[in-house]
């Protein structure tokens, strides 16, 4: 069963002079096992939207249902929230316990699992995010480096076995190798747990690599929802919104502008290389 968002509108401080409409009539569905990329300019309502997905915020009007749990209903909210794992941008907001082990086990403990199961899940989560158990389990989370903190925060959510994993800019502030590592990790738990992923990111390259479906938010409304190929062929519109299309898409459109007949659906480096190679072979109609 999917997450269904129907006619969702969110107004901050509604009724006061500072009232501000962050989201307007949003309709979308997140299917089981899907990888959804959520993009949009700063202030387009991405953060507000993902907080609605697990009931941390309630809509001013409209409805979110997670596998049939109505998130507007206080009694059903906890049931839906247990299915949606949410990783915030900064790990400093969630790490608190004395050791990495205890911090990761905080979520599973709240799910009322037994000790043996908790232990198994913590070990598995640490393995999935690449934190060595022997080395890190007894360390204080405050002694970790920035990248390690992020892995630890991720592990704390993965250990809850979410059916939907929501990530708010999981790669912000990481270097290229760190970004790749996080993307690989996300791929790893998708294979292991079969969970759906909703990822907010400013990096179109990362979204192009990973997503099955891309949602573009503009000024609190869904501007466009489609496959990466559909979205990234709109490079002019994306540029206008202050979003930079992936490198491969920009390269392809620049080449097209200079008279090379490349297809419009190129948005990953692999596809670009393939197209260029077939060009080199002299095949004029790729």
């Amino acid at each position, binding site marked *: 069963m999917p997450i269904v968002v129907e006619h969702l509108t969110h107004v*901050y*401080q509604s009724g006061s002079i500072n009232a501000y409409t962050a989201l307007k009539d949003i309709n979308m569905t997140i299917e089981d096992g899907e990888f959804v990329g959520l993009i949009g300019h700063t202030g387009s309502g991405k953060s507000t939207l993902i*907080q609605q997905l*697990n009931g*941390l915020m309630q809509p001013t009007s409209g409805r979110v249902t997670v596998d049939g749990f109505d998130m507007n209903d206080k009694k059903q909210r906890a049931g839906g*929230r*247990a299915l*949606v*794992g*949410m990783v*915030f941008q900064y790990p*400093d*907001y*969630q*790490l*608190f*316990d004395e050791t990495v082990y205890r911090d990761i086990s*905080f*979520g599973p403990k*709240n*799910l009322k699992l037994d000790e043996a199961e908790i232990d198994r899940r913590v070990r598995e989560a640490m393995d999935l995010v690449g934190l060595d158990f022997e080395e890190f389990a007894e360390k204080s989370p*405050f002694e970790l480096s920035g990248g390690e903190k992020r892995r630890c925060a991720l592990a*704390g*959510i993965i250990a*809850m076995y979410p059916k939907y994993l929501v990530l708010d800019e999981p790669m912000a502030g990481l270097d290229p190798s760190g970004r790749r590592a996080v993307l690989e990790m996300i791929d790893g738990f998708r294979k292991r747990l079969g969970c759906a992923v909703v990822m907010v990111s400013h990096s179109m390259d990362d979204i192009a690599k990973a997503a099955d479906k891309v949602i573009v938010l503009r000024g609190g409304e869904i501007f466009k929802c489609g496959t990466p190929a559909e979205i990234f062929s709109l490079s002019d519109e994306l540029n206008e919104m202050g979003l930079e299309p992936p490198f491969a898409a920009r390269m392809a459109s620049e080449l097209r502008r200079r008279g090379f007949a490349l297809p419009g659906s190129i948005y990953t480096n692999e596809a670009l290389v393939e197209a260029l190679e077939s060009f080199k072979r002299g095949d004029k109609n790729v």
Partner: protein
Amino acid sequence: MFKDITLGQYFPVDSPVHRLDPRTKLVLLIMYIIAVFIVKDICVFGLVLAFMLFMTIMSRVPLSYVTKAIKPMKWLLPIMFLLNLFMIKTGTPLFTWKFISITSGGVRQALFIVLRLIALVTGASLLTLTTTPVSLTEGLERLLSPLKAIKFPVHELAMMMTIALRFIPTLLEEADKIMKAQLARGADLESGSIFRRAKAMLPILIPLFVNSFRRAEELALAMESRCYHGGEGRTRLKVLKFQLNDLWALLIMSAFFAAVVLIQHFLPIDSMLTAALKRILKLG
């Protein structure tokens, strides 16, 4: 979650009151508070409330914003009223039933306590609604500057106040985010005994403290790297200046103050009214 706190919230409009020098506004508030305590007649209190209303209209802040400050006292006010009503035994008894008795002095005192609290709180909230925290602390620093003569760290105190005020919204926002992060991990903050709930706050308090200490250190570094070394020889971007407006405000306030004092001392309206009332009752 914490968006509804009004205390210390600036209401950004342009008005004669907003334009006043913060020092003037502080002096006005002090005079107003003294006036509130001088008043001993219910009728004269009408004058105080009328003055408050006048200032509110001048400031262009909606009355509902000013009176919002009373909301947190919705329990305190009735309790104070009832305590005074039943505990004070001066004046003539009005009503007696077994051990409970209400006297005219009690009624007076109870009404006064409530009116005074309302007058004080609305006055103070009008100040914070019309003055930004930064200019408020600046005004305070300038008003207290004579204390430097006795080595009182006026500048440091003002800087600490500025920083504290500046970071209240940041801390609230951060507490909100941390709370959400832990709720998303299944933290249960709302059920169980008081001890359980206190323990459940730990996952929120620890990150909040850790982040605050880190931020304080970063802020100190950022200030030092811009050559901050305390108040010695420090000049201001915007120097406070008394203007004609301020003179008018002080004159109006003085007139109001004088009126309160004079009426209070030479025109005992309350006793005149009671005497008149008694005469009418006797005639009837």
